[in-house]
């Protein structure tokens, strides 16, 4: 049973994730995304982007890294071997491109337990940090330019479910 005390918790902006060209190519290949804007700089620039464009679900890398702060906390009572992914949503405020330095503010929006099943919804607000800042300030309300919102729900089955 997920610990309901974590509902409403907000984790401050995490250590930046540097979006690399080869990571975009690697991820695009892994999901079979063949659009040239993921692989070829000339094609990406031809569409008006500064650099290679990440596929629509690339932000999951950044989001899962941020979610781990919560999920891997023993006090949260989430048995990862009993977790099933229930839903996922990506809202892009602008496309992610190679060269972005992304930092994430993690929100634990909802924890609901019914019977032996707990449903946990997290929201990752992902920002691109300005070039002048290397480490996000934990106090900053918005650590940069909003890039993506990733909402994810996990279902955790209890021992008897």
């Amino acid at each position, binding site marked *: 049973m997920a610990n309901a005390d974590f509902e409403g918790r907000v984790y401050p902006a995490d250590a930046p994730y540097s979006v690399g060209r080869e990571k975009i190519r690697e991820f695009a290949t892994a*999901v079979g995304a063949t659009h040239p804007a993921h692989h070829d700089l000339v094609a990406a620039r031809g569409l008006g982007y500064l650099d290679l464009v990440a596929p629509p679900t690339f932000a999951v890398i950044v989001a899962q890294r941020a979610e781990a702060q919560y999920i891997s906390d023993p006090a949260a009572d989430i048995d990862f071997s009993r977790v099933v992914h229930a839903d996922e949503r990506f809202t892009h405020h602008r496309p992610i491109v190679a060269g972005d330095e992304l930092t994430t503010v993690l929100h634990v929006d909802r924890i609901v337990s019914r019977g032996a099943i707990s449903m946990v919804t997290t929201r990752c607000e992902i920002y691109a940090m300005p070039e002048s800042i290397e480490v996000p300030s934990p106090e900053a309300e918005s650590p940069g330019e909003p890039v993506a919102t990733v909402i994810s729900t996990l279902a955790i089955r209890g021992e008897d479910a």
Partner: protein
Amino acid sequence: MSRPDMAALAVGDVIGTRTVTFDRADLVRYAGASGDFNPIHWNDKVAEGAGLPGVIAHGMLTMGAVVGLVSEWAGDPGAVVDYQTRFTKPVEVPNPGTASVDVTATIGVIDGDAGTVRVDLAVTVDGAKVLGRAQAIVRL
């Protein structure tokens, strides 16, 4: 690549169909690329211990693989401004062998004021739905 002409689209138009296949190597490749090393996606014993019939594909791999059809149709992957799904049924991946995932993409909503269309994805394995309410909003 050309962009679709919004004025020429109608709700219900099928913009494309595709079959994507996953074998065990594809799951390992996605694990490495995404950083999601949950062993239910590569270790049969762990998967069975978790009550699954065997190794299953990452839901996020299925979600990521089926949207390629939309990115290519849009002519610009950055035009996919919103994309959501529910994971309704696990995709079992045999060893050896492949799982075949069938995708049909249909225009669900046209919003002329916003300049967007909603593309609805029907995603099935052997006729059974594996993703629910899979919807991509595309800016045209």
